[in-house]
């Protein structure tokens, strides 16, 4: 414990009972939290509000609106609005515009803040102080929080809080969001109401350069001694960004991420699926059989379950990514991946979202939030579903097993089936790069903002912060995607169980969905698909993996194929060209309502998910058509 951290400079200056100008006597209701990127603002926000958080989007923009509540004894609780990380309020970026609007009370739906907490990195004071003048110009009572006090202390830096506070005329607190030291000072400011909106004569600083100079002078005048360079960070970077070891570790981290998702998340997901299926059957066993049971069990319950089964994978993936992010490694991975991403007009920051998309596009699209440039973020969101997610694996394995005989290609290392699977992974990846290149050279072409990435110091991530953030993302996913899925699942279940034949649900191929399968047969015939595949395509709009179950139902109901395994039934029913076309179709098409729901949420409009669905469907159709044409030529 560092004793100096427990004091707030302003509190030391004034007697505790002193009434100061500003919001004296008036309890704070809403407080804004602002600070530059990498100032440890999120960790501090999590520590202040724990799990009492709400996430939404600001109206009309993609910027996230995060609020939390600070509880207090017997008093009205305070709402904290976490503003996006910005260096100043010049309104160049969407983030800056949003932050400025909230502080001025011009953001619809967000009450005008009564005070503002300015968070800066104490180890980087000369640079981070330049946010202060812009914020103080809003006239709100403010507390300047010098975060990362533990690092400043450990590395021999120091700052005179009293001098700094008297220079800028607002209270200053030295805290550590990671260890929790010094948080009292923030609570004092928020609840003791002895904070002042004191007299300060800040110069009017027009240019960022002037702001920087002012910040540097201010740091000097406050006896700021910058900490020694982070020795451990330099040593670690010596290995992790080493010409040979760097890429090797990078590769290992990627493999570990896949392993974590597949070896840990996937079995958990499968287990959960079994449990949920059994639970569903037990829950609805009293209903007998009939339309409503089918709708409730196959529709509502299955929709609910299909969301929940993703949760283990999402949690594992997000724990892993948060670990990389909080430790500081993510920035190193991003700089190493930059060249590859640059070739398609993106930059290193898109790398991790795209990597995550190999597990599931849903968390990947949420992970794209780390990309500040709106257009780059949108492009990343739009190409993420091309990556081969785990929901494609059931149909891939089924079709490959049914149509490709296993033969060794590279001795025991690679067989024909493994090669086919790799080919499908490559196909999705290439489609993503191709789409990114098109988007970034047309509709999403961005102004040539240079790619600048700050490499933060390596830190031990705190389990608390990791858990809070992963749980938060998992909850957002369940809530938002869940509501959309429930509606679609119910509609699909109704269509699969109507019209009633003699008071009972019809056979699947006579239901509305079955009729739709027959109806689209002429459209999909050029791809080598028959009406059974058509029904599979219609039902799998809901989720890709559903097609395997649908095939099971269809071939199981047909006397001709009842006694065959699903593989043999498929083998008899489709020609090789049609099989390849079906694989290509699944590599490209966006059959995942969870993804559509999350894209809608992240882009705050239906325009992008609609475009994405249409584009991927067109590509899937064209690709499958071409595949069918080529394979049938080659075969004959």
């Amino acid at each position, binding site marked *: 414990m560092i004793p100096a951290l427990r004091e707030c400079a302003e509190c030391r200056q004034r007697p505790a009972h002193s009434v100061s100008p500003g919001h004296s006597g008036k309890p704070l209701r809403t407080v804004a939290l602002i600070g*530059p990127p990498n100032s440890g603002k999120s960790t501090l926000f999590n520590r202040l509000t724990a799990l009492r958080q709400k996430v939404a989007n600001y109206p009309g923009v993609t910027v996230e609106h995060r609020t939390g509540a600070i509880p207090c004894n017997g008093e009205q609780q305070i709402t904290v609005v976490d503003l996006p990380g910005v*260096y*100043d309020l*010049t309104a*160049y970026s969407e983030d800056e515009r949003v932050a400025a609007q909230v502080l001025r009370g011009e953001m619809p739906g967000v009450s005008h803040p009564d005070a503002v907490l300015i968070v800066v990195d104490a*180890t*980087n004071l*000369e*640079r981070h102080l*330049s946010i202060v003048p812009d914020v103080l110009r809003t006239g709100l009572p403010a507390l300047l929080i010098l975060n990362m006090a533990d690092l400043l202390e450990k590395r021999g830096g120091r700052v005179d809080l009293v001098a700094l506070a008297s220079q800028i005329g607002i209270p200053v607190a030295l805290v550590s969001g990671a260890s929790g030291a010094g948080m009292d000072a923030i609570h004092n400011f928020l609840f003791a109401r002895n904070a002042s909106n004191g007299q300060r004569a800040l110069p009017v600083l027009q240019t*960022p*350069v002037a702001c*920087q*100079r002012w910040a540097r002078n201010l740091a000097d005048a406050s006896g700021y001694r*910058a*900490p020694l*360079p982070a020795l451990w*960070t*330099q040593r670690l*970077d*010596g290995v992790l*960004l*080493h*010409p*040979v070891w*760097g*890429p090797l570790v*990078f590769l290992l981290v990627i493999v570990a991420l896949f392993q974590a998702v597949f070896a840990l998340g996937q079995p958990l997901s499968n287990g959960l699926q079994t449990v949920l299926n059994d639970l569903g059957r037990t829950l609805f066993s009293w209903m007998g059989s009939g339309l409503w049971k089918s709708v409730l069990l196959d529709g509502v319950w299955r929709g609910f379950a299909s969301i929940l089964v993703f949760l283990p994978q999402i949690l594992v993936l997000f724990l892993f990514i948060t670990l990389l992010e909080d430790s500081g490694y993510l*920035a190193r991975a991003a*700089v*190493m*991946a*930059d*060249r*590859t991403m*640059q070739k398609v007009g993106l930059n*290193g920051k898109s790398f991790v979202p795209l990597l995550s998309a190999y597990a599931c596009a849903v968390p990947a699209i949420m992970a794209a939030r780390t990309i500040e440039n709106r257009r780059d973020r949108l492009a990343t969101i739009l190409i993420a579903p091309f990556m081969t997610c785990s929901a494609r694996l059931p149909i891939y394995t089924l079709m490959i097993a049914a149509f490709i005989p296993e033969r060794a290609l590279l001795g025991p290392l690679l067989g024909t089936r493994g090669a086919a699977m790799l080919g499908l992974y490559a196909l999705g990846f290439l489609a993503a790069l191709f789409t990114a290149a098109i988007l970034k050279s047309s509709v999403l072409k961005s*102004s*040539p*903002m*240079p*790619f*600048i*990435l*700050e*490499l933060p110091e390596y830190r031990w991530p705190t389990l608390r912060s990791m858990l809070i953030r992963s749980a938060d993302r998992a909850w957002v996913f369940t809530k938002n995607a869940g509501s959309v899925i429930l509606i679609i699942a119910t509609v699909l279940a109704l269509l699969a169980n109507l019209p009633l034949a003699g008071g009972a649900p019809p056979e699947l191929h006579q239901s509305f969905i079955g009729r739709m399968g027959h109806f689209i047969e002429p459209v999909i015939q050029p791809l080598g698909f028959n009406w059974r595949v058509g029904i599979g395509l219609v039902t799998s709009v809901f989720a890709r993996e559903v097609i395997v179950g649908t095939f099971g139902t269809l071939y199981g109901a047909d006397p001709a194929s009842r006694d065959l395994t699903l593989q043999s039934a498929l083998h008899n029913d489709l020609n090789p060209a049609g099989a390849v076309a079906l694989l290509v179709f699944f590599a490209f098409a966006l059959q995942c309502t969870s993804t559509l729901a999350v894209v809608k949420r992240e882009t705050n409009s239906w325009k992008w998910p609609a475009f994405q669905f249409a584009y991927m469907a067109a590509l899937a159709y064209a690709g499958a058509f071409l595949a069918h044409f080529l394979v049938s030529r080659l075969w004959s």
Partner: protein
Amino acid sequence: MSLALPNFLSLTAEPVQPHPHTPRRLSDLEVGETGAICELRLPEKLRHYVTRFGFVDGAAVTVARRVPLGDLTVYRIGQAEVALRPETANEILVVRQPK
């Protein structure tokens, strides 16, 4: 400021060292070298953007390391380490400082 002739134009036997105060591109500094920024040849908006990372006139920048698998370089500026692409570092002129 003085102009230095490239070595191959030199008529003397001794190679001519560029004058230490000749501005050069940040991207031309070697790992471990430090330069003081003297000019940012960037359009207003981009200049504003790099300013936030501490790239202002007079600031000392040290080349920390080259990033593997690409063309990025990590620079130490103030307390921060920042990775730049060469196309950005080309437009930042520095005067090399003695170690």
